């Protein structure tokens, strides 16, 4: 990867590869995660990729994108621990397949959307804002109607009270009502002037040409910002909450602080341990809860790397809720006692290395890995990561799991008669 500083806290990164048929431009605006800014930025993302000054209608945007062979322009917000990014992405076909100046048009299009949004006076377009607010409310309701997404968000809220994990990029309906056009317009100006920006270009491009095009299209200025992303979620007292709904299945989410930061030497030990615990068909959770007892279809653990939290999720019958909670905790205890064989450890390492290597074939995973290196100020090559995974030992895993305690449990419980009602 070639990187160049365009000005203070504005970096450009070029990943040259001929593997993919596309060229991807990804602009990542980084700032601190806090409310209500996190919600305001979600609205901004909804507005930013919809229309702009040069293409003021959806139809004009669609025609422009179709002219670029089904190019796409999209924006989204994502949390990175204590930070939040707003990513604007333009994906277009590599011009070598169809001829023409696609790359130049792609960069110009990104600049139009990002630097010349649709405005009315000093503010962003009120019509655009109105539509974005309707879409935001629909997103909130859809998350609420999706049992597993809802349960995960509620457990994160419980676990991360007063910390970054407890902050959602989606507000509640009441919080959404309070968002104003003035707030979103100010957030846009702040994002362009003050955010750290990482611009990624990935595909078969000529580095010198693309550098010159980007410098010309994005005349940006220095900015001051202290990057804070990874941190460790902590919680004193364990808490458990549940809600009841007329649904067909009970969704259970359990969270454990890991006490392991993303930059810690123990990070890959934790990831390997999580594979053994709940990420593979050979894992303790899968074997004990699904295979031996047929209590669920899906059960898995995952690591929220930037927040230092391990999460376990499953869908079960409400009658088995206590049994499954106990089984999950028993498996965590087995990990803490080193009750897993050498073959499981080796399998976990193989699978983890396999997934790391596979990320080389996925355009977005490649960008995400480089972005993580930028945020952490490190350069971790795939070989180095693979070596770290190979050197993970049982005792280190055991210690990490012994230090873990379940601090948040959320269950979205099915009403007893839910299934009959729905049939």
């Amino acid at each position: 990867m070639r990187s160049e500083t365009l000005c203070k806290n504005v970096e450009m990164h070029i990943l040259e590869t001929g593997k993919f048929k596309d060229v991807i431009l990804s602009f990542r605006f980084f700032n601190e995660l806090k409310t209500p800014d996190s919600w305001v930025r979600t609205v901004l993302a909804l507005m930013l990729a919809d229309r702009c000054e040069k293409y003021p209608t959806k139809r004009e945007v669609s025609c422009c994108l179709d002219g670029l062979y089904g190019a796409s322009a999209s924006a989204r917000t994502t949390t990175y621990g204590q930070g939040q990014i707003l990513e604007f992405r333009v994906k277009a076909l590599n011009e070598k397949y169809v001829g023409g100046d696609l790359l130049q048009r792609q960069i110009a299009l990104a600049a139009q959307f990002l630097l010349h949004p649709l405005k009315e006076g000093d503010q962003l377009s009120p019509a655009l804002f109105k539509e974005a607010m309707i879409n935001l409310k629909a997103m909130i309701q859809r998350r609420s109607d999706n049992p597993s997404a809802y349960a995960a968000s509620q457990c994160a809220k419980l676990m991360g009270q007063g910390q970054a994990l407890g902050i959602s990029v989606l507000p509640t309906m009441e919080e959404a009502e309070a968002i104003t056009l003035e707030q979103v317009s100010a957030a846009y100006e702040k994002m362009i002037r003050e955010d750290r920006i990482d611009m990624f270009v990935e595909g078969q491009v000529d580095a010198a040409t693309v550098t010159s095009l980007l410098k010309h299209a994005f005349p940006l200025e220095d900015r001051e910002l202290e990057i804070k992303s990874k941190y460790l979620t902590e919680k004193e007292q364990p808490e458990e909450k549940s809600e009841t709904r007329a649904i067909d299945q009970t969704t259970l989410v359990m969270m454990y602080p890991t006490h392991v930061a993303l930059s810690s030497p123990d990070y890959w030990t934790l990831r390997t341990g999580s594979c053994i615990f709940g990420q593979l068909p050979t894992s303790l959770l899968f074997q004990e809860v699904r295979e031996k007892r047929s209590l669920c279809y899906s059960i898995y653990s995952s690591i929220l790397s930037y927040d230092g939290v391990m999460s376990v999720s499953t869908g079960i019958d409400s009658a088995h809720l206590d049994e499954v909670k106990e089984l999950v905790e028993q498996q965590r205890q087995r990990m803490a006692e080193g009750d897993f064989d050498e073959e499981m450890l080796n399998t976990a390492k193989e699978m983890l290395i396999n997934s790391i290597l596979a990320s080389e074939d996925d355009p977005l995973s490649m960008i995400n890995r480089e972005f993580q290196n930028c945020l952490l100020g490190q350069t971790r090559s795939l070989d180095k990561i693979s070596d770290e995974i190979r050197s993970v030992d049982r005792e280190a895993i055991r210690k990490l799991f012994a230090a873990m305690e379940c601090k948040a449990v959320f269950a979205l419980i099915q009403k007893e008669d839910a299934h009959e009602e729905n049939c």
Partner: protein
Amino acid sequence: MKKIVNAQFDETWYTHTLDNGLNLIFWHKPDFVSAAVVFATPYGALDYRQIDKEGNHLDFPSGIAHFLEHKLFESDEGDVMDDFSRMGANVNAFTSYNETCYYFTTSHGDLKEPLNLLIDFVQDLRITEESVEKEKGIINQELKMYLQMPDSRLIFETFKALYHKHPLNRDIGGDEKSVNATTRQLLEDCYKLNYHPSRMTLIVAGPQKPQTLLEWIEENQKAKSFEPVKDVGRYLEEEPETVVSSHTVIPMDVAVRKVSVAYKFAPLKTSAKERVRQEWAIRCLLESHFSSLNPDYQNWLDNEIINDYFGYEIDLGKDYAMMMFYNETEDAAAFTQFIEEQLKVLKSRAVDYQQLQLLKRRYFGEAMRTFNNMEDIAVAMIRNQFNGVSFFDTLEIIDQLDQQQVQEAFGALRFDQRSVVEISPAEDQTQA
């Protein structure tokens, strides 16, 4: 082995059929690290009732294709998933309406061991009464998971409202009753009929040398013999022209009402290529009208007739044909009326030439992107193989579409069989 090169897409692949009838496709991607291998049979959820050439019926419980998919992973030693994990390969499977696919992906260059394992486990069903019983609890939880998802429930209920007899009216996994009625014997009978190599296709998309892959697979297959298989096909009862229910309300514990307005058409009695041509012609017209390409689209959003969930599907299958519009709205009647009005407009509106050309560009770009991902390549090629129209033939069909073909394809549709389905916040009552 036949080598095929598509210079425009910069893609190369090889095809071969073994003596036992197994179709092989090797999609060669030397720049990539990972490989995807898919082994598939054209036996899907719609095939649970079959008939042989003598007219003998072979009926299985609905969802049996999906049940088989679960059970094939079992071996005498336990579960083959564990073996794949040990090899650093991710294995999985899925059942759709028309096919069942078993696949693995791996970034380890040496493919021989997992490739042999995939072929061996798919070609050797080993189950016990006990393991079949145990699986029922897992599958029933899977079915419940989908039942509580409003999006998948809307689609499933729409099919149920449209079809009296056609197996589209059953969930891919069946239901609790059919799952519980499935036995070891039924699974074994079904397997024998539908997993013969002559019916199946194996595709490898990855950097490995095609000749080496062929040698490995030939070696594997030479060691096995397969009993001749009965020629069986999907059995379909005659489907009435009418829909089952013109209006269905499904109460769920949700905040947002989702509505589908679906139309049932008589299946097209034409060649597979002609069906594909007509489907894409209609899709182009629908996309030009029911998307942001239409200047009215913004008004529909602003007036909250539709929201960002709105979309449509057109599916002209081998033995069914339907079109579906879906939306989130509190007023299902107004949405239905809106769709009806717009379909009338479309009957007399020709697709704009420029728009058609832009759509062709879009679909070309989307097709090109398939080749960024090994799994996408493998699944797309398998589906095209079973459908009888190749990936590149489909692209040619799209490229050659003209305004008249679009108008004629749409003009041939009769919109008199309609079904409206609502997934409704729970206070409403079910009605037929």
